[in-house]
């Protein structure tokens, strides 16, 4: 356990090194957020919907703030397999899956906190209808935070499965791009899931991708009633456990047939 904690700490230190890039990233994301909200506002003016607009604005800002959580973040593994230095990782007295899981979790958590916190402050200061609204209730905030934590665990498990494919095929850029994109669409980053056709939402909210950010955001904005919260968190928990189990199985199989390259 101590080893995993120190892995986490090491990645955290790495992540806070590039503060200049962080600032650039924040400004970019904020700009995208404003553009999206402007478009949705104009559409709403033409045809108001049942869901209040402030929820849509909050949805956009929360997605932008935690954007970093969705991005594939660990390109090292591919290089290690290509160059053969994966051998060093295999020598460590650690479970390979756990080692990479912790690395990814640190990167995603710290990366999105660094970018998310200033952006959320900015979004809270914007006028009503443009910015982030306060959570529906204190209880909703607590449920949403729990949901966000489960979402983080779920996205790490998901990414480790992607990396499992990388170990198999060596060049998985095409596959990776496709999975990333599926993520962007089904997470609600390109278009809020709450604006998808109502009939689609019944299915799409059950997919693992919706568990990452969509569930906590719905709880935060109050789009999902609090009575639904336990059920939604159970779905999240279910996916997290299933994906983690699948990932561990997959990695163990990969590890048995891995070839060390190099020379």
């Amino acid at each position: 356990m101590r080893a995993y904690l120190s892995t986490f700490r090491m990645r955290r230190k790495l992540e806070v090194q590039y503060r200049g890039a962080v600032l650039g990233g924040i400004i970019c994301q904020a700009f995208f957020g404003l553009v999206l909200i402007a478009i949705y506002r104009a559409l709403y003016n033409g045809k108001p919907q049942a869901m209040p607009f402030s929820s849509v604005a909050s949805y956009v800002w929360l997605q932008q703030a935690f954007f970093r959580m969705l991005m594939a973040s660990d390109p090292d593994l591919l290089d290690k397999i290509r160059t053969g230095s994966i051998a060093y990782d295999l020598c460590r007295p650690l479970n390979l899956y756990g080692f990479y899981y912790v690395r990814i979790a640190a990167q995603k958590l710290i990366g999105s906190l660094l970018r998310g916190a200033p952006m959320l402050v900015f979004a809270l200061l914007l006028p009503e209808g443009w910015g982030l609204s306060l959570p529906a209730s204190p209880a909703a905030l607590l449920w949403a935070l729990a949901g966000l934590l489960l979402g983080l665990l779920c996205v790490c498990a998901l990414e480790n499965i992607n990396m499992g494919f990388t170990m198999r095929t060596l060049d998985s850029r095409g596959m990776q791009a496709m999975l990333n994109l599926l993520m962007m669409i089904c997470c609600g980053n390109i278009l809020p899931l709450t604006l998808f056709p109502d009939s689609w939402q019944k299915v799409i909210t059950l997919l693992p991708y919706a568990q990452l950010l969509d569930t906590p955001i719905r709880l935060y904005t109050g789009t999902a009633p609090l009575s639904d919260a336990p059920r939604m968190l159970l779905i999240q928990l279910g996916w997290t456990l299933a994906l983690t189990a699948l990932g561990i199985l997959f990695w163990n199989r990969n590890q048995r047939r891995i070839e060390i390259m190099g020379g």
Partner: protein
Amino acid sequence: MDTIKLYLHSMRMLIKSQMQYPASFLMQTLAQLVMEGGEMLAVILLVDRFGHLNRWEAGDLYFFFGLMSVTFYLTECFGRGITGNFPYLIRTGQLDTFLARPRGTLTQVLCSAVDPRRITCIAVGVTALVIGSSMSHVAWTVTKALLLAEALVCGFFLLLGLFTIEGIFCIYSVKSVELVNTLTYGGRSACEYPVDTFPRPLRVLFTVLAPFALTLQQPGSVILGKPLFDWPEWTAFVSPLSGIVIFGVVWLCFRRAMRYYRSTGS
């Protein structure tokens, strides 16, 4: 003339080299298709829920989307040397070799890369243009076709110019400056929709500073028969030239900046 021959020759070589890994190439091309398809899906779903955006109907929205995505991915495909590789050339010092050759730096940068995977994105854009224009009942004439071609070419140069700005920053700072992405990628995402959707500051940004409204949308809206601005129709032929003007200005700045170029020396 010689330069064009050189460019075409480089393109042939680069494409040939990329085809050496056909499976990976195919997968990546497919991934591009899904990516741009996803963007279009967002527009379709929005149209499905809301029906229209101010005075723009579904067909108009698809048309504007197609206009932007064809232009943007043509630039990403043929201007890859600038849109993607330039920061890398600076960081690794590879740009030095270009300075020793008897051709313009920008020409050689353009010759250094091509990205044929974008072909599927362009195809999505063309599909959107066709669907959009038929849904909006556009009666195509030679003039309109010429106007469309002019818009695409000028939009190409505008984007090339905007991406070159990033290159100029890069010459001074070595690191790539992602802030400029707000103009390029941000411009793409925003100007998939007509600019009159946006509040004034954004509208000014995309009409004056990064004039997507003048190069793409003014001619596009005239083709649709719903002019974006209350200007006489012939202005639609003049306004796209702003893209070329921007490219010219940026090109001059690039030449000045190159005088300050310090090799990273590795």
